[in-house]
């Protein structure tokens, strides 16, 4: 009698498990979305200052010379905050790419490259983007770019 109950509970749980997992995934994505939204103003500020750019793998990347020059004027605490911001954003992006890759049946790397392409096409003038060849270019008006 007891074993019958255990079996019934097990069957019920196994039926609901995929739905529970899907709900957890959606909640996770919603949380990531919210965090990204909150970071957006700070990221845009750095983008506008030319201190960070969008690389060809779908992640944010500090821009070498500009960042080094700016770092000298920055307080250590502020610099740490910026690094954390970039790291957290990239971690969340990686989670999103991984979830999408799992859903579609591909790799997170491919998802990242597709996102990088979308960003490169849609970016407004002034944003630094990395081409598929690896060169960093500043987006200009009418899709023109400068090296």
């Amino acid at each position: 009698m007891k074993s019958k109950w255990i079996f019934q509970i097990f069957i019920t749980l196994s039926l609901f498990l995929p739905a529970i997992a899907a709900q957890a995934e959606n909640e996770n994505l919603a949380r990531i979305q919210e965090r990204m939204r909150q970071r957006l103003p700070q990221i845009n500020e750095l983008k506008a200052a030319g201190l960070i750019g969008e690389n060809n793998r779908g992640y944010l990347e500090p821009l070498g010379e500009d960042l080094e020059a700016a770092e000298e004027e920055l307080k250590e605490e502020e610099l740490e905050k910026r690094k954390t911001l970039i790291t957290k954003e990239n971690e969340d992006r990686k989670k999103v790419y991984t979830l999408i890759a799992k859903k579609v049946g591909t790799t997170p790397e491919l998802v990242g490259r597709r996102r990088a392409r979308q960003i490169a096409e849609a970016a407004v003038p002034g944003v630094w983007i990395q081409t598929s060849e690896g060169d960093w270019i500043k987006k200009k008006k009418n899709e023109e770019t400068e090296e």
Partner: protein
Amino acid sequence: MKIKVYLFSALLPAGLLFLPACWTKHQINSRHEIKPIEVKPIHITIDVNIKVDRALDDFFSDIDEEDPTIQQSIQQ
């Protein structure tokens, strides 16, 4: 009569000798191969890219709308 026989016996081997020259052979070789249906990788890649782009749009469209570094005209 004898002349006819001689003539016949002389022409018969000659005729037999040239008989193969009258024989012609016509041959058409045709080969039919049925190749197995191939699913080309490029189609698969495009299909995956479309699915990925759609999934990315689903997730990022709201964020991109709020992002001033993303052009609004391209988002829609």
